[in-house]
């Protein structure tokens, strides 16, 4: 099955309202699962990334909603867990330039799940998550330097 076929399948399931779909053929087994209710899945990231909040605010009466929207966003951030860099190096989202990102926004991670690669002096370090939850934000651009203890991902506990 091609990547774009899988993408189409996921899009179809996303629009269907189904929570879980299992497809099994002779040479393929695919399981697509939606975590939580669809409302939460789209609303939570919207509060951390500013653009969708702004568009919602624009549809509503002008002045009032903006500060209201800001307050819950700040308190929401505090409930997230931060995955920090254990070392100095260059941050990569995938194990090689051709490979897909190890995690994307919305992905659920468990302790032990690799989330990124940090390279230093030709040593490639696969960083495993120590926490469980759903990735809500990637805080560092691919192929950029990171410092020790620099926040890399925001994770919403599940």
């Amino acid at each position, binding site marked *: 099955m091609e990547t774009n076929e899988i993408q189409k399948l996921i899009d179809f399931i996303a629009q269907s309202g189904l929570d879980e779909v299992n497809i099994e053929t002779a040479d393929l087994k695919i399981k697509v699962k939606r975590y939580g209710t669809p409302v939460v899945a789209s609303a939570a990231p919207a509060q951390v990334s500013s653009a969708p909040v702004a568009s919602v605010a624009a549809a509503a009466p002008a002045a009032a909603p903006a500060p209201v929207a800001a307050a819950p966003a700040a308190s929401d951030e505090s409930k997230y867990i931060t995955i920090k860099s*254990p*070392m*100095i190096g*260059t941050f*990569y989202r995938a194990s*090689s*330039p051709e490979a897909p990102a190890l995690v994307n926004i919305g992905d659920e991670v468990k302790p*032990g799940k*690799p989330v990124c690669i*940090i*390279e*230093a*002096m*030709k*040593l*490639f*370090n*696969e*960083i*495993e998550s*120590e926490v469980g939850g759903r990735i809500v934000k990637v805080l560092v651009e691919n192929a950029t330097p990171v410092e020790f203890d620099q926040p890399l991902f925001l994770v919403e506990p599940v």
Partner: protein
Amino acid sequence: MKKIEVRGTLFPFIKVKNKSKKLYDSVSKTLFIGKKILYLPTCHSTNDIAAEIVREPLFPEGTVVITDHQTAGRGQRGNQWVTSQGQNFTFSLLLRPSFLLIQEQFLLSQAVALGVRAYLQQYTPETLVKWPNDLYIDTKKVGGILIENAIQGTRIAHSVVGIGLNINQQQFQSSRSTSLGRNTGKIFSLNEELSLLLHWVESYYLRLRAGRYQAIREEYNQYLLGYRQERLFRVDGNTFPGTIEGISDAGKIQIFEANGCTMQEYDVKEVEWVWED
């Protein structure tokens, strides 16, 4: 024959120690490296296979994944490691250097490079390490190392050490490449050489495990290509004469720039080597 399934494909699983008496003797010299060898006639990348089997109890520390033909070998991120089929070493070694702090990991790179260098030294005296971890005979590259660690919290849970070493290949596209065989005019038995090479790599890994960090750093400098010799470097497009004065604990190269009388530290991607011959 016993077979092991990796990514849905069955591979023959060969315990090398039964294959030849000589090989058995030399592999028995090691404590744990090469006691289990997963031989794949062809595979995309031994590092990728090793990373997949690392959690299997069947493959303890010291397991070697070796192939005759690597189809998607990797050098430094994005650079391909191209090698002739069945003539050279392409293998990966599973290690668990949990005694090392994350910030001490360059020592692993140094120890492995010194082990491979010591092996080559038996046949050819002019064997040096080119910073950070390439192997050179005179001014030609004979091998490289690619290390991938898995980090859990503040510890290195395991390391996959990929080693590519040109042994019997005679023809090279690049004039900057060579092989042990081409340099010495001999043909080597890969089976026999593997045991010797693993013996040397293990010897340096044991020094690392014994905490002999300073000795490793000093020996690395001793065999560092260009150490304390003036040569040309390029930084941000500017070529300048400089001298390698040392390597920081983090692995950065310390270059004394003759014109400006300044000492600077550089990362791998920040400084380029300029060959003058």
